[in-house]
């Protein structure tokens, strides 16, 4: 077997299927999307070349900037949530009782499909029968917020289930990374008199810094292209108050039949993701940690 893998031809032979699939289903559609963005096209019928018109329209489109802002806010909140996930993982990785069980409990939301989570949280947020408002009314609040109907609240109301949904995933990553830290290092630290707090922030966190950097990029990029919960729970409404880049793109292409502009939006989303990834990487390396 080793003999086989050492051969250049064999390597190429084994790489080709995956490479073909990636090129065929990722890179070619990507280039096509960029190309459609230059066209006026309703998804069928004739395409008319309009050059950079769609990109000019995009720059002046308040809906685009609003949804971009919402996406970036989600990115920011998801990154902040990483701190919370990290703290939970640090606590779990101490030799505490029931850590194993808790870790599994945290993981459960990740196993549910987004649509199921959306249905669950729709009930939690229900303006009259939902858990939140039933509780608030019980406490004597007269007009509890209508969460998903309130344009000032809807975005934050959506962030909660999204952050909840991914908790298990990041906790699992952090927990595994923390468990991989050599016991020798931790023993040495405790011999030198480091307390729990110092061990956590001076030893453990720096030692898993590479993993943390990766999760920051995962969280930011994942947030920028986030779609499912928002689409099921509000559809971007009311009046675009919870529209994010991906849902705006979807709506433009598939509901307004404006594939040209929708493609331009998709391409812009790709650029935003690339730029953010580069920026995030720059920031995390600059810190020199």
């Amino acid at each position: 077997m080793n003999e086989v893998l050492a051969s250049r031809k064999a390597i190429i032979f084994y790489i080709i299927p995956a490479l073909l699939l990636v090129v065929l289903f990722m890179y070619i559609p990507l280039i096509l999307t960029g190309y459609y963005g230059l066209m006026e096209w309703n998804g069928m019928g004739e395409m008319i070349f309009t050059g950079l018109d769609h990109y000019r329209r995009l720059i002046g489109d308040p809906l685009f900037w609003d949804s971009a802002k919402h996406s970036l806010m989600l990115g920011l909140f998801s990154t902040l949530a990483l701190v919370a996930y990290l703290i939970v993982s640090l606590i779990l990785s101490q030799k505490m009782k029931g850590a194993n069980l808790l870790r599994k409990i945290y993981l459960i939301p990740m196993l549910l499909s987004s649509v199921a989570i959306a249905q669950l949280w729709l009930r939690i947020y229900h303006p009259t029968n939902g858990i939140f408002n039933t509780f608030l009314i019980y406490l004597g609040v007269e007009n509890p917020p209508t969460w998903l109907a309130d344009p000032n609240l809807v975005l934050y109301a959506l962030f909660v289930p999204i952050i909840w949904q991914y908790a298990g995933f990041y906790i699992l990553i952090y927990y595994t990374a923390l468990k991989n830290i050599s016991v020798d290092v931790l023993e040495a630290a405790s011999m030198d008199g480091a307390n729990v707090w110092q061990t956590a922030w001076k030893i453990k966190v720096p030692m898993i810094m590479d993993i943390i950097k990766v999760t920051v990029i995962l969280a930011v990029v994942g947030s920028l292209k986030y779609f499912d919960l928002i689409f099921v729970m509000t559809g971007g409404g009311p009046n675009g108050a919870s529209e994010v880049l991906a849902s705006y793109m979807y709506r433009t292409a598939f509901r307004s039949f404006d594939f040209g502009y929708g493609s331009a939006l998709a391409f812009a989303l790709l650029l935003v993701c690339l730029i953010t990834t580069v920026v995030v990487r720059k920031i995390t390396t600059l810190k020199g940690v």
Partner: protein
Amino acid sequence: MSKVTVIIVTSLLFISGCSQSNHSGGAVESQQKTIEFMHLWPSGSSTTHYRVVEEIIEAFESENPGIVINAEPIDNEQYKDRMTVLSSANNLPDVGFTWAAGYLEPFVEGGRIAPLDQLLAEDLKDAFVPGTVEAFQMEGATYGLPLELNIAPIYFNKSLFIEAGVQVPSTYEEFLGVIQVLLEHNITPITVGNRDAWTGSLWYMYLADRYGGASALTQAINRTGSFTEQSFVEAAREIQNLVDQNAFVTGFNGLSNDEAKAEFLNGNAAMYLMGSWDLPEFTTNEANSQEFRDSIDYFKFPTVAGGAGDIESWVGGPGVGLYVAENSDVKDEALAFVKFFIEKWGEKAVTEVGVIPATKVDTEVLDIHEMYIKILKDLNQASHITLFADVQMSPAVAQIHLNLIQALFGQEVTPEQFALEHEEAFE
């Protein structure tokens, strides 16, 4: 294992995998013709619809040996996505469902859908209720044959009305009075699920009709009129007036239509403006208690003092219709199936599914619930039926309209802005 054997074995696995799928693809007999048919009624969410469709397909297949119908039911929203994707690949199913007017337009312009005038001229001549097929006509040809005809009444809960001691309102003044009294009795007057903004659009459409007259909205949409006319601003202001009075259920902008309907079905809300497609809920659906179903009735949207509207004017129109794909390789068979389907559906729709078909129904011979008789009678008396605004508009404008409806209900725009932004949407 030698290098060569490994490569050969993997290649063989790869090749055999491919050829296997080829084989099963080519297994269809050459004699047999298959009609691909995509419809909107999956067995789970529309059980009776689905069953009747299956019956019709079976009957067609047994009358026409050698033709197989390959039916694929898909839910509403996914259905629209599927249509978009398949038609951009020029790969529409031979027969399928489409909505009228604005939705249909891109498909017709793109040459994806075949005209059906041949059927209308021969077998289905005079089969349809006047004014239903027109919504599917474009550039002098008919591209869809409607299956349903709907109008939207205000359903109300008689027990709640009795509890509050109010009568069915016949003028808008009385209607506002009813809302006040219901509120005093701690009953939610109206439920509306404006997350699906077409439901709020129904309220706006009716008010526009009652203020500006039956053709005002249609003219504003086809650009012989304008949304800035006073009657539209009045209608928008009246919506906000209702919101101010707490006439609508709490959190309406965050509720889906289903969630809002639940408030009505639970007996929490007294009124619900919705299409006649919901009649089965209030007549035959065993999931709702007999007591509840007996307590439901409907009234016509009341007229406004000084408005140009007529109480016999309705918001509604044909629902979905059948199309035949232009590039279908079994076009003749597809046309025959459409004809068969329309006829059989017309026979079974009211009695077995509880849907009012777009084809003419003889109420005398049918043994049906009285609410159906009442609505069929009202349909005959209707002075005008205004097609749903988001169906009349082109898809892009419809999206803006629906967003604006949410903004209007949410008090985020003034009635004047609301009118102006509609005007801008058409530019």
